[in-house]
């Protein structure tokens, strides 16, 4: 069997409310938001409202695909949901989404727990399901609400992360963006550097775990909050991402100059810009899309793709690369085709800064 897998439609959804740098500065007068914004490239982030979960965001994105007739719910035979903010410990949130989206009972449904590498992981899994003939139409959902884990006084993460959801239809029908190949990698040695320590089986979320303390940078958090060691994450990214990109180019027999667009996980403008310069890629080929939305974890790649409508043409080679929490990383190479892109409706006011280049960049 020589079946191929294609992406046919991508929809994204952002929660309505947005927290701006001005608001963060009012709350935390000691946070130098201008300086932080200059580094991160982030001026606002959308935040889920109380009671709104990651699956609500993914659901809203998926409903748009169905309402638009970009996907037919009766034909979905597998749903993959990527999240680190599940509705419950059990059941799998994907089961709840199967029911809520009125997908067939013959449909497979699983959650998988990945962060910034999650979208690429989802494409690799969906492609494997489709190419093997196991499934014909896979719905890949991502949804993340890191805001729930973030202590409001933790500058290191609060300025960066935003919430979002996405839905992608992958099938064996030719015409969409062909998933040429993917590579993934793992270094669990970095597991402690981006983590919510308490609340799972290893560390109960008891009274001790909820004791708040201040770190050397003046940020406050408990063991039940998100913790990020930014320097370690930065060092990891510089070490692993360039070889990953080379590995995928070698595997697919394509040279870097033949790649028309590199859609990297939108970690922050400083990191992405340094990564781009290190790899010697043209700024015009590496879109930045985080000014009004922040780092949305597994949603950054579909959000960026949806912002690129006019720049993506059939036949163009597009490399996607995700990297972060785990440590986990992955890259996929696509040959672009007819893909319905549906930017978030609450993004109407969001400027398309796809060609934005970090100010003060040395390149």
């Amino acid at each position, binding site marked *: 069997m020589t079946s191929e897998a294609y992406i046919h439609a991508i929809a994204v959804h952002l929660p309505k409310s947005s927290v701006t740098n001005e608001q963060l500065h009012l709350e935390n007068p000691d946070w130098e938001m201008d300086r932080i914004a200059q580094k991160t490239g982030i001026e606002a982030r959308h935040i889920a409202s109380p009671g709104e979960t990651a699956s609500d965001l993914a659901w809203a994105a998926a409903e748009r695909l169905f309402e638009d007739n970009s996907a037919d719910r009766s034909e979905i035979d597998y749903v993959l949901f990527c999240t680190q903010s599940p509705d419950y410990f059990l059941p799998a949130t994907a089961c709840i989404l199967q029911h809520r989206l009125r997908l067939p009972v013959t449909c497979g449904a699983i959650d998988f727990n990945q962060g910034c590498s999650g979208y690429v992981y989802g494409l690799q899994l969906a492609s494997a399901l489709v190419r093997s003939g196991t499934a014909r139409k896979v719905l890949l959902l991502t949804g993340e609400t890191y805001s729930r884990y973030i202590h409001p006084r933790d500058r290191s993460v609060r300025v960066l992360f935003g919430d979002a959801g996405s839905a992608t239809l992958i099938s064996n029908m030719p015409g969409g963006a062909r998933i040429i190949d993917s590579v993934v990698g793992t270094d669990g040695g970095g597991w402690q550097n981006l983590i919510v320590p308490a609340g799972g089986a290893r560390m109960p979320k008891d009274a001790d775990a909820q004791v708040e303390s201040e770190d050397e940078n003046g940020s406050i958090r408990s063991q039940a909050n998100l913790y990020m060691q930014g*320097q*370690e994450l*930065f*060092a990891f990214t510089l070490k692993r991402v360039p070889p990953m990109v080379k590995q995928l180019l070698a595997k697919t027999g394509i040279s870097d100059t033949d790649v028309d667009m590199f859609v990297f996980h939108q970690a922050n403008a*400083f990191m992405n810009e*340094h990564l781009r*310069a*290190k790899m010697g890629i043209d700024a015009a080929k590496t879109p930045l899309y985080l000014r009004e939305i922040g780092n949305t974890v597994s949603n950054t790649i579909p959000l960026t793709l949806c912002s690129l409508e006019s720049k993506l043409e059939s036949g163009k080679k597009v490399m996607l690369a995700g990297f972060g929490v785990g440590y986990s990383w992955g890259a996929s190479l696509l040959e672009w085709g007819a893909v319905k892109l549906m930017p978030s409706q609450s993004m109407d006011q969001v400027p398309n800064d796809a060609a934005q280049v970090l100010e003060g960049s040395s390149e």
Partner: protein
Amino acid sequence: MKAQNLIDLFAEALEVPPDTLNRDMKIEEVEDWTSLTWLTIMALLDEQYQVELDAKSIRGFQKIGDIIDYIGTKTTVEG
């Protein structure tokens, strides 16, 4: 590279004139030397000298000279 090149690099990261920094200064006493400064230094070192700095080493540095000495173990640094 010369030790002065590294002082220049730290000054660039801090956006201050190089002559305001010297080997014997305590890092915690340098104004505006934040976690963001470290990220900038990591990026500049990687870009200009292909030297990787990790968080564990950073935590061990007391004085500016400690950083220069550490980099000296990774590459040649002349007085």
